[in-house]
């Protein structure tokens, strides 16, 4: 069962109370040093907060966006050694080293991310491995250069600032400050636009990018925040342990433990890692006395096993599950089955509502420039390792038309859509959209320019509700609405697509037909001037096809130009103003539908024999 993420229905007052709650808890916990507990307990409390800080910071990139990093140790270690070198070797005042530690760690992270995030293939396990490798490389460099050189760095001579009655108390307060900051930041990110973008990246990065999420930038920001916090934790920890060696600092313990803690607590929730961190640290250290250390380690292992087996989503989501399940039960029991013709929006109200929409396009701009052409490609070519999927295609798309793009299997139709939408970059040639060259643009900029698409096999964001899927498109696409306006927009398009009753459901609760219409709603929610439909009708029966055809006409009438790829000839003939026929990656024919379909070369290439079989 999937947990819905983040920014659903969170009102202002709820947000304020959570922030206040965190701050209040922080203030209350800040009084603990006044209790003058034995150093042992203060140290344990420090460690709990230390791990809360580390795990929460890790989660901001890795949990939210799904880029599981095993390199948190590198950034933590950078912070440790920054403080160790500055305070231990250059006698800087300890507190001044902390911002530098955070900054350097963030810098390292951004430098790494700038390179790694450009490489599309490095995701998932590969990203985890790469970050692990970076840790080892960094450790080796630190060990063999004057930064450490081998013997480690002693910080026993560094004066500890007197923030609390005791030394452990001081560290406790510093860690507390860090943990509170991390929690506030994690919560803030989850509620923000950045958070929605990161969750979308988690579910389907390519679809998110094509929809308009600036994935590269968002990942870098999340990484920078994550690393800065880790560096801060490292800086404080350096003085806490007071003797720093590469073996200890860059060991596999830090990266593994933060993953453990976050997964245990729940990676999709801002408080998950904190819960996991507290649970595991307390468990481990409850056993520190005497010979029970081993039992502690074994118990931690057992707890982890039990958690994975019985609570795979994590503790926090499991606790919140009941509420989420209740909401979804309402949605799943919705009586409407969009599989039947009745459910499709054939009613007058929907038609009227659509007709009343302000025109989606910059009609004014077009009138000014006097250009009828919305999109034009010139000698567009796309090759995949030697195979030319598009071999110099010149196509014109006129504003306000419905253009059918047809051709035999493998003729390049889907590739054309992929290249125009920016899913793939063109090998050569030009694409001009409203007079502007877009072939070099990143996919999310193409989305902002006003182009949207659907996928032949629907790619919804699996952990976002149906409504949030559409709202995300409204937020990040050409319309670029704020999150509250985006929700209202989403509701409108869900009504248009007949999915209102399923608004709170998760995509995997929809059948294929509903998912295709979710794709459609999502594409339209960004108010595109051009929408590219990739075999939207595939899998529908004739009556459903008729309804879909009517729907597509309404989309055009509301001001969006439509290009659709189809095999269902009936629909193609009924809908298209013009047809473009591709064959073997080249333009074979182009013109009014009836004319094109009469041409013998088109008939031969595409339709084959006219005899019944």
């Amino acid at each position: 069962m999937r947990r819905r993420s983040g920014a659903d229905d969170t009102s202002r007052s709820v947000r304020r109370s959570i922030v206040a709650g965190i701050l209040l808890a922080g203030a209350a916990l800040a009084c603990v040093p006044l209790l003058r507990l034995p150093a042992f307990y203060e140290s344990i409390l420090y460690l709990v907060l230390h791990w809360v800080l580390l795990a929460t910071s890790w989660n901001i990139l890795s949990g939210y966006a799904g880029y599981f990093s095993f390199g948190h140790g590198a950034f933590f270690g950078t912070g440790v050694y920054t403080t160790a070198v500055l305070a231990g070797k250059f006698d800087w005042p300890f507190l001044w080293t902390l911002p530098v530690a955070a900054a350097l760690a963030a810098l390292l992270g951004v430098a790494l991310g700038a390179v790694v995030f450009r490489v599309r293939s490095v995701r998932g396990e590969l990203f985890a491995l790469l970050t692990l490798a970076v840790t080892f490389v960094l450790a080796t460099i630190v060990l063999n250069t004057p930064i450490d050189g081998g013997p480690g760095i002693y910080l026993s001579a560094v004066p500890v600032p007197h923030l609390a009655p005791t030394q452990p108390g001081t560290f406790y307060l510093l860690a507390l400050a860090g943990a509170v900051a991390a929690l506030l930041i994690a919560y803030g990110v989850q509620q923000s636009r950045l958070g929605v973008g990161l969750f979308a990246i988690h579910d389907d990065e390519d679809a998110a990018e094509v929809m308009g999420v600036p994935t590269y930038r968002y990942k870098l920001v999340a990484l920078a925040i994550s690393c800065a916090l880790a560096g801060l934790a490292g800086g404080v920890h350096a003085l806490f342990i007071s003797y720093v060696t590469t073996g200890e600092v860059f060991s596999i313990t830090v990266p593994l433990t933060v993953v453990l803690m976050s997964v245990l607590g729940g990676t999709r929730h801002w408080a998950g890692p904190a819960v996991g961190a507290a649970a595991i640290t307390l468990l481990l250290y409850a056993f520190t006395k005497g010979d029970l250390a081993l039992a502690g380690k074994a118990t931690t292992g057992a707890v982890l096993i039990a958690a994975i087996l019985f609570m795979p989503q994590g503790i926090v989501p499991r606790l919140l599950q009941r509420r989420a399940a209740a909401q979804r039960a309402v949605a799943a029991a919705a009586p409407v089955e969009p599989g039947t013709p009745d459910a499709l929006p054939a009613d007058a109200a929907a038609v009227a509502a659509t007709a009343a929409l302000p025109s989606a396009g910059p009609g004014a701009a077009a009138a000014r420039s006097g250009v009828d052409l919305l999109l034009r490609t010139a000698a567009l070519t796309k090759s995949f390792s030697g195979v030319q999927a598009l071999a110099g295609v010149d196509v014109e798309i006129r504003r306000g038309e419905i253009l059918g793009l047809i051709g035999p299997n493998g003729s390049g139709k889907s590739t054309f859509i992929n290249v125009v939408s920016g899913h793939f970059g063109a090998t050569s040639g030009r694409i001009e959209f409203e007079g502007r060259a877009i072939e070099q643009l990143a996919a999310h900029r193409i989305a902002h320019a006003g182009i949207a698409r659907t996928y032949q096999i629907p790619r919804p964001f699996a952990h976002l509700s149906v409504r949030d899927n559409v709202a995300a498109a409204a937020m990040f696409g050409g319309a670029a609405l704020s999150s509250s306006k985006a929700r209202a927009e989403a509701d409108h398009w869900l009504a248009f697509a007949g999915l209102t009753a399923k608004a709170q459901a998760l995509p995997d609760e929809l059948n294929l037909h509903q998912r295709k219409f979710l794709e459609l709603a999502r594409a339209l929610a960004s108010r595109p001037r051009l929408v590219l439909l990739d075999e939207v009708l595939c899998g529908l029966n004739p009556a459903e096809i008729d309804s879909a055809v009517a729907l597509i006409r309404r989309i055009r009438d509301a001001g969006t130009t439509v290009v659709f790829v189809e095999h269902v000839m009936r629909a193609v003939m009924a809908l298209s103003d013009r047809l473009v026929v591709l064959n073997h990656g080249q333009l074979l024919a182009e013109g009014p539908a009836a004319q094109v379909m009469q041409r013998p070369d088109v008939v031969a290439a595409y339709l084959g024999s006219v005899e019944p079989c």
Partner: protein
Amino acid sequence: MTLPSATLLAQSALSGLFVGSLYGLIGLGLGLSWGLLRTINLAHFGFTFAAAYLCYQLVTSTGVDPLLTLLAIVPLFFALGCGLHWVVQRFEVSPLNSLLLTFGVTAIIEAAIQAVWSADFRRLESHYAQAKFRWGALYVPLPELITLITSLALSLAIWWLLRHTRFGKAMRAAAEDAPIAAAFGVNQRALALLLAGSCAALAAVAGVCLSLSFTLAPAQIYAWIGVVFAAVMMGGLGSALGPLVAGVVIGVSEALTMAITAPSWAPIVSFTLLIALLLLRP
């Protein structure tokens, strides 16, 4: 930085070859499990070390030949591997969660090892340790040679099995699309248990080889994780020969780096290689 003699370099490369073949041997089961069973099995390292310690114990207590201990150890770990995978199947654990689950298992194994054998270093004393051959100007220690031959033989055997037998093809099909493989008669659950048991058995073999050449300590379990993962990923998940080749590449580059510069620089070569591979591979 004076370049050492050719003999020293060759000897280093040779020892790199040997340790690399051990990386490959450990990585073999890990990679198969990851590629074909979608399980990232950190417990593989726990199994390897547990087997190493068991071998040590059997030899120290009974004086039997270390290689004979395989007769008892391999079936034991085959069963353990089956058991672990049965749990993974039963609870439908995802690949990422399997990483964490097996980490938990490893923590328990490590604690158990430390409880029984303490954290002190243990070294297996056997007649193998002293035996050496001469090959030209180079020394070839017997334990390392055994490891190399075992690694090579097992890798080739598994490669052949996967490529040319019905079992191998069924396994590959099931790894790619289990329901459709089932529709053609592949009993994926049974095959998976068999494979998981075999991977654990491979870990046990690796453990015995490890005990022949290396000093054992519980904390050492984690020292191998990074390098072996690197070998597996470089070699390709689910590949039989890949981990061995990658392991040797890593081992040799490490050893040469150690010989030319200083031992502490060793990791940088293999990991930089890995990073470069990940970034530049098409």
